């Protein structure tokens, strides 16, 4: 194995890392702000990919409009889920929202499967990148798909914007205040429940965005989120539950690590992240970037 080949794999790992980062970012925002462990995140990611595919099939919409519309639609669905279902469970044990979101996952997967089979007559659908992003580009050290470069750049940009909004703006301050101490925040005349709905919608919107980005790389199928979400949860735990910086950095790092793993010793590729999780939990139970519970 040459150094060049090793570098190629590191670079390649950033693509998967981009998906982990986008998904765990949404999970971190939702958990950090609302204390909801959203098991339906993988299904909403799949819904993003499926919506892009369906918009193309039904209305002839291409990749670019779908990249905007699909995450908005998924965000809207998120809003309905939060208002209609999750909000009824606040104050109850966390296991209730875990069960609810898990149930939603099963429901969504089967529903999409039925629609795909009956309406589009496929169980796994093709989706191609837009013409201007298809093909490979010679990076000097390797031939790399243009589209994958685009995914890395866009994911980084979105992560940066999200971090900036939450940490540096007034909107972010309100959101943080609403979750730290809803009673006091309410006393300032802020409608906390509206902000909660908004945060949830943005979080799942990010999952929807990741789904659209994934559609040209992986095939669009009902269970595409099921496997990914497990790794993503591991990423969130490693990064520190609720830490935005942690989820982004860990997301990219795990992507790179898995790529190196599968290049050096393929059978370990899928297990690597869990080994890492176990090690991190032993050394730093609150995750790499997480604060101990008491310090919040």
């Amino acid at each position, binding site marked *: 194995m040459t150094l060049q080949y090793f570098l190629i794999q590191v670079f390649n790992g950033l693509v998967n890392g981009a998906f982990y980062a986008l998904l765990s970012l949404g999970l971190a925002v939702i958990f950090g702000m609302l204390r909801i462990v959203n098991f339906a995140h993988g299904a909403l990611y799949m819904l993003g990919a499926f919506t892009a595919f369906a918009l193309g099939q039904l209305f002839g919409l291409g990749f670019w409009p779908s990249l905007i519309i699909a995450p908005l639609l998924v965000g809207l669905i998120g809003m309905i889920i939060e208002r209609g279902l999750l909000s009824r469970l606040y104050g109850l044990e966390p296991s209730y929202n875990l069960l609810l979101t898990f149930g939603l996952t099963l429901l969504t997967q089967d529903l999409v499967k039925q629609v795909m089979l009956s309406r589009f007559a496929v169980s796994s659908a093709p989706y191609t990148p837009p013409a201007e992003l298809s093909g*490979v580009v010679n990076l000097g050290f390797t031939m790399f798909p243009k589209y994958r470069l685009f995914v890395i750049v866009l994911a980084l940009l979105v992560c940066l914007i999200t971090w900036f909004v939450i940490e540096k703006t007034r909107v972010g301050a309100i959101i943080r205040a609403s979750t730290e101490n809803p009673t006091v925040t309410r006393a300032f005349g802020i409608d906390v429940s509206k902000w909660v709905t908004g945060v949830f919608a943005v979080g799942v919107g990010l999952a929807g965005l990741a789904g659209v980005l994934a559609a040209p790389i992986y095939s669009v199928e009902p269970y595409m989120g099921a496997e990914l979400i497990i790794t993503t949860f591991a990423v969130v735990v490693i990064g520190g539950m609720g830490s935005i910086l942690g989820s982004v950095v860990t997301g990219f790092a795990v992507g790179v690590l898995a*790529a190196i793993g599968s290049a050096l010793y393929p059978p370990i590729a899928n297990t690597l992240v869990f080994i890492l999780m176990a090690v991190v939990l032993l050394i730093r139970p609150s995750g790499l970037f997480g604060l101990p519970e008491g310090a919040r």
Partner: protein
Amino acid sequence: MKKAKLSALIATAALSSLTVALAQSAKLSDNVIKVGVLTDLSGVYSELSGPGSVKAAQMAAADFMAKNPSYRNKVQVVGVDHQNKADVASNKAAEMIDRQNVDVLMDLPTSSAALAASEIAKGKKIPVMVVTGGTTALTNDKCNKYTFHYAYDNYMLANGTGTAVTKRGGNSWYIIYPNYAFGQDLNRQMTAAIQENKGKLVTASDATPFPNTDFSSYLLKAQSLKPKVFGTMQAGNDLVNVVKQYNEFGLKQQGIGLGIGLLFETDVAALGQDAFAGALATVPWYWNMDARSREWSAGFEKAFGKKPTWAQAGVYSATMTYLNAVARAKSDNGDAVVKALEGHRFSDFFARGAHIRSQDHRVTLDVYTVQVKPKAQAKEAGDIFTKVATIPASKAFTPLAESKCKL
């Protein structure tokens, strides 16, 4: 009280021995032949087999009864879901045989599920016709008196495709395979076929996790190794992902061809045939290979709404072959039917030049190496294959001399 119980027991025993006596004098157990299609009705293989396989078996039953009036209303078909899991397949097989009085098991996609059901059926002396499961173990070290392997197996896939691709100049390979029974077996068989034809592997094959969505690491490895052929032993959705990413990384443009271990029509449909164009694969049949196949497929499409995959056509053929054996044996007793099947030679729209080998129960038939056409060359919907070579039944499958089967 005790006396009453005892007499009830004796009465039951007497009655049951009476029913046994009645059953033996009748031609058919419980007066029907019940065909059990044990398949994947909801998961990843449900499109290529599943409900279509159940429909195919029903069509075979209807056609058989029409041709043999003495069997009118005597053949029934039940479809059961095994979810591609070996443990579920075991339980369902036992339940179908014990409670539903099924006389034969059919289809069985997923090698591990096929092996499990075959084991159960052996204990209960019920014939099994494996159509969609691929492992060669079924007719090799795990063979048994009641199991027959129809349509295809990993040896035939590897022997057909490995030979054809290597002989056409694709003599250096890099292979990846899913890390479970089917993939490991197919990788072994493919490697052997390539080496037999003086081809070589540029590096040891890589086992990938199963299931898996991202194959970019292996495609980048192929880029740097520059083999003439990138061989993938993945199946179903994993195969679709491999091929999608093979195109994304532009390997074809870099002069690296694609060799596919197991290909179903539904995989091509999932990605569009241009993504597969030029790839070689080996199949036992395809719907538009000739007039006879077209005629049967038209009937299937009318009944089911979709064109048949080769797995579904295989289930029809296997069901008909089984029912004909029942007619010859004049009984649906497992041992009698096995006897009627062994050594039988026949030919139908699906199985040409077929022979049921009595030594290992491999059903040999002519198979075809095909190449996927570009969309522009397709004359109609579903026209995806061009025939490259016909491999005669006698050459397509494991030679008996190499079989470890002891029946």
